[in-house]
């Protein structure tokens, strides 16, 4: 078993290469090759669209001045400070730490019946977050990031990954997590519907034991960590008003139009991250779509 706290993630480039590889293998077979190429073509277009969005996000971060909590006003706001629990925390699934956000994933090295190669396939995953206070030294404001309404960009420093070989048991923390399964009193999972697959792991695979290679990954935003938030300041849901300059009456959330970004990276790191990834994704997406289109046309 290998445990890595800051793993080398192949990222989207690796995924793109994998997709292209799978498509090329698929295209050499008869049958579903046309469909696979068409899917690859669409994935390429999506990458272009998403890359353009990332470039726009970079500009948004760059163009929004960082405010201080004590003087923040209603509207789009950028803040930086320490994330502090507002009373509730989440226990990280695979490590012993208290967090404000966590997403986890269990993958297995599987071979698709229709494909010649193996790939990591997600067999269980989940996300959970709790509201927290952001303290920038001038005051505190509630950040109400909920699943689905915020984008969390977590750096490698707060990512933990365990990899187990065939027939090897996962580490004790992972086993405990799967055994606990974090059930509420009424029997529902605290991870909600996102925890699809855990039941199967318990019932079918004898608590995390598998005859395949497995990868256990978690990304967390630890309590008391430095955080960057770009979102909308709005009157608090409880006891709020429209007065400005009173952080205890405001909270950070996402409105209909604005982006809501929470990250443990600094503003400069995020600018670099989006600034690089956006254009690369656009170029990669155009390339993937063009190759798929050429192969698709060539097959007729």
């Amino acid at each position: 078993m290998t445990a890595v706290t800051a793993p080398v993630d192949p990222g989207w480039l690796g995924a793109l290469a994998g997709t292209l590889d799978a498509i090329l293998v698929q295209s050499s077979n008869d049958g579903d090759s046309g469909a696979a190429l068409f899917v690859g073509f669409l994935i390429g277009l999506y990458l272009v669209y998403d890359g353009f969005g990332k470039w726009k996000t970079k500009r948004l971060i760059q163009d929004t001045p960082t405010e201080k909590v004590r003087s923040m006003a209603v509207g789009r706001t950028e803040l930086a400070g320490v994330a502090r629990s507002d009373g509730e925390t989440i226990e990280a699934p695979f490590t012993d730490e208290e967090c404000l956000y966590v997403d986890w994933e269990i993958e297995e090295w599987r071979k698709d019946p229709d494909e010649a190669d193996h790939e990591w396939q997600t067999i269980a995953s989940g996300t959970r977050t709790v509201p927290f206070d952001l303290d920038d030294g001038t005051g505190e404001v509630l950040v109400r990031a909920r699943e689905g309404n915020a984008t969390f960009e977590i750096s490698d420093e707060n990512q933990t990954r365990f990899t187990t070989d065939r027939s090897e048991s996962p580490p004790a923390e992972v086993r405990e997590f799967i055994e606990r399964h974090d059930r509420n009193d009424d029997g529902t999972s605290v991870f909600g519907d996102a925890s699809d697959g855990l039941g199967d792991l318990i019932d079918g695979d004898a608590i995390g034991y598998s005859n395949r290679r497995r990868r256990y990954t978690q990304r967390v935003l630890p309590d008391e960590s430095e955080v960057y938030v770009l979102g909308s300041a709005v009157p608090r849901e409880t006891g709020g008003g429209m007065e400005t300059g009173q952080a205890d009456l405001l909270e950070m959330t996402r409105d209909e139009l604005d982006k809501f970004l929470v990250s443990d990276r600094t503003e400069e790191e995020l600018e670099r991250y989006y600034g690089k990834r956006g254009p690369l994704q656009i170029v990669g997406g155009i390339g993937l779509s063009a190759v798929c289109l050429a192969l698709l046309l060539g097959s007729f």
Partner: protein
Amino acid sequence: MVLLIVGGFVALVLLVLLVGYVINIYNQLVSLRERVDQAKQNIDVLLKQRQDELTKLIDAATEFMEQEEQVLQELTAAREATAQAETPGEQAQADQQVRQALMDFEARAEAYPELRSQENMMQFQKRISELESQIADRREVYNEAVTQHNTRIEQFPYVIFARQFGFSERELFRADPEELEDVDVGAAFDQAQA
């Protein structure tokens, strides 16, 4: 034939991207301009609150400081100057006037123990002090927004659209040189006592 279609597809995607890029450039400029206006309005909200607090302070002090007509007039004049200031330059000047008037007022208020013991007086002064800090923060944000706006409209390719659509440079808030100097509280106090 295949190459032609693929080439056409790539050209089409690049064209769509170019159109999207151009639209985005214009939208960015609009967004920056809106940001500056918003930052200015956010300062105005606090200035209005400070005006209200100053009015309350003057009203409360008048009762106890009837002999200090000059100090109260100075404070009233400073409040009026802030209300009339429109541009960042005028606001900076009016701000300096308010600060000076408040310093004089506080120094003179020392001679009136009954005034100092009034709880609401202390609250007004504390509130005004908090508002001063918040106004200073928001001016920093305003200046950052203006700097981004002014820099962007001079950069290529933004400069083409900025000129075409009439985006002009916005005025920065510049603090009065006197504000940048260290405050000699002792001297100010002596001056007010004299």
